[in-house]
């Protein structure tokens, strides 16, 4: 049976027989010694190593990095979370636990919000840094920030409460959803927003 041609670019690679020098291996051995010695010398005396010595040296975290999710405050220092529990619902590993304030609970500390969470816990032993909480949050109150190395001595320590999350999250600069709405409404002067 004649050999069928499968591809247009089928070709035969010419393998040249090794020369005597190549078969003796000796030039290759000398070359190997040269290269390895050069590298060893450089990393020993030139300090040219590629190792990043982690706890002392740290890498630059890229701007769109998805680190640990923290609660953020708005520019006026008010809690953005309104305890809607969407993030708790969407969280795949069930790392988030929210206790809403209840009928008699504390009111929100900002306008345009009915309530804020009584307790908000993220279990960082469960969190998988997927970012669904950030994606689902209608109030833009939770963000995956740049922390990547969370450690603790006990399991309890790795469950972060509301105050800790708010402190770590800090003030989020860019987004002020309700201010935008208010501005839009004031421009149109027909949006029923009570300030």
């Amino acid at each position, binding site marked *: 049976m004649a050999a069928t041609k499968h591809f247009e670019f089928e070709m035969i690679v010419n393998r040249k027989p090794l020369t005597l020098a190549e078969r003796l291996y000796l030039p290759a051995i000398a070359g*190997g010694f040269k290269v*390895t010695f050069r*590298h*060893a010398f*450089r*990393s020993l005396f030139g300090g040219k190593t590629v*190792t990043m*010595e982690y706890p002392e040296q740290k890498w630059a975290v890229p701007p769109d990095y998805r680190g640990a999710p923290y609660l953020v405050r708005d520019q006026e220092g008010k809690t953005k979370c309104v305890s809607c529990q969407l993030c708790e619902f969407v969280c795949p590993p069930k790392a988030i636990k929210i206790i809403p304030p209840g009928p008699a609970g504390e009111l929100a500390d900002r306008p345009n919000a009915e309530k804020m969470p009584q307790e908000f816990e993220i279990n960082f032993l469960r969190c998988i840094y997927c970012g669904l909480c950030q994606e689902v949050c209608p109030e833009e109150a939770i963000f995956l920030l740049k922390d990547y190395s969370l450690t603790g001595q006990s399991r309890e320590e790795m469950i972060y409460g509301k105050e800790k999350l708010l402190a770590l999250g800090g003030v989020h600069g860019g987004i002020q959803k309700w201010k935008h709405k208010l501005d839009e409404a004031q421009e149109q002067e027909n949006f029923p927003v009570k300030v």
Partner: protein
Amino acid sequence: MNWSFIIFSVVKIAIVVGVVQGMVAYAVLAERKISAWIQDRVGPNRAAPPFVKAIPGLGPVLIRLGLFQPLADGLKFMLKEDFTPAGVRKVYFWLAPAIAVIPSMLVIAVIPFGSQIGRQQMVISDLNVGILYTFGIVSLGVYGIVLAGYAANSKYPFLGGIRSSAQMISYEISMGMSVIPVLLIVGNLNLSQIIGWQSQHGWLALYSPVSFIIFLVASFAETNRLPFDLPEAETELVGGYHTEYSAMKFALFFLAEYSNMIASAAMMVTLFFGGWTLPFWGLDHPAASLGMGIAQILVFLVKMLLFVVLFIWVRWMFPRFRYDQLMDLGWRRFVPLALVNILITAMVLWCVS
């Protein structure tokens, strides 16, 4: 058989075994450090007991060099769970590490590591058939590897064991034949006598360089070091013959590999590079004083360590040989070359005398 002989032998054995074990531990560190430097890395530079950092000046340097890493490694091996997989042949599985490690330690018994201190010769056993003993013991080392591969009841170790047996047979022959010219030149099998001859006439590596090269390559193959680490071959066989081993049993294979390396280095120094002698500073004849005796031991250790570094260096330099290339090199290059070498040496000696 008198008491002083027994006591001095026991002391020498204890010291030599202790030193070799320590050298194995630090050879592992050297391996890691040298590999790191060659690959533009830093290598182990953290582990240290807490008080070392307090030593001003010196402490951080010691930590940076990783000098306490072997302690941590040893401790880790001892504390790890000694796991025996289901379906292994228990007796052989437990026996294999011991069989691998014992020959590598026994080889060192006949190597003269110094001339003499006082009236004590610095060799554990000054055998008249030192070289034959060495070859006999070294060839036992393969049984540990083959048994480990066979007993583990797993494919990768089995392949590693098979490869090892084939490799050992191929290289033992050329290794043995490469030494025959040395024996022809010296006319003696006693390692101390060989060193004595070299102190008078010069190093044997100069008389018989082909022998040395064959012996060097063969000892790379014998110790399962890269370029001939086919029994282990991490990239192909997971871990080779010791895939199923853990904790101290794995550490014993590790120990065997490195003490084989040290033993081969010692053999090369003894056979080809004049053992404990140096041709100047009066180091070429048996020591008369304590200081000279110690100096000669140090000369031997330095020569040996240079070879250990060569072993390590070469490992991080070359890719692994393919199996058929290995066989080709062993049977079709080195065996004929060794035979021709014997013939030529014999003819030259015949013409000279």
